[in-house]
């Protein structure tokens, strides 16, 4: 009904955090605090991945809802909002399916970050061994 809205909302929050983090990293780099020979994946880049997963998924799911006539181009945009019973069902779906979707995407992203960090660490070790 509108489960994609939970992921879209999380994507908006992640975008704000990503922008703040990116500014911090640029500042830190300019002041020379974080200059090391080791390659590291910045948090802002990882947050970009999460944002792309959440937003990409939400856009394609929104299309599915348009396909099924659950999202319409006129106010209130969600057909379930036309009566209280459907609205209650929609909020229930958002709280169950929507939240689970957002949580699973975040969990997959977290695993992805751990694996990416491990790969970068291994690559750093290989480079330092060769040197």
């Amino acid at each position, binding site marked *: 009904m509108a*489960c*994609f809205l939970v*992921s879209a909302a999380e994507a908006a929050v992640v975008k704000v955090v990503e922008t703040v983090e990116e500014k911090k990293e640029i500042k830190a780099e300019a002041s020379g605090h974080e200059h090391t020979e080791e390659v590291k994946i910045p948090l802002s880049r990882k947050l970009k*991945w999460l944002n*792309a*997963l*959440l*937003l*990409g*998924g*939400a*856009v*394609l*799911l929104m*299309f*599915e809802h348009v*396909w099924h006539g659950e999202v319409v181009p006129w106010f209130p945009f969600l057909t379930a909002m036309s009566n209280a019973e459907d609205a209650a069902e929609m909020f229930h779906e958002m709280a*169950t*399916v929507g939240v*689970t*979707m957002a949580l*699973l*995407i975040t969990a*997959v992203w977290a695993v992805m970050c751990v694996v990416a960090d491990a790969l970068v660490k291994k690559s750093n070790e290989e480079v330092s061994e060769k040197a």
Partner: protein
Amino acid sequence: MTLLITVFAAIIATYKWYTRKDDTMQLGILVFMYWGASIMWFVDAIFEFAELKAEYFTPAAEDMLNDAFLGLAVVALGLVIWIVRLLITDPKGSVRAALRRQA
């Protein structure tokens, strides 16, 4: 069916991203978009399975056709978003070069 088609699209996009020569084609956006949608539809499928049980695996032919059609439309939409973004960001400068020639 929509989930299956999106998962296959995600796998193909990931394979193309892995075997890319450089980043100019911006395949990462496709990879994230299709995997994001696949995860979300996977959750949807779990909830549907919990409700329908074994019946989930025996959909009506009409529903399956509609879902397949939707899956293909979703893949097409993902490709449209990717190509529009590629043309706007124009990392190879091809669009700008073409516009300069026409001007």
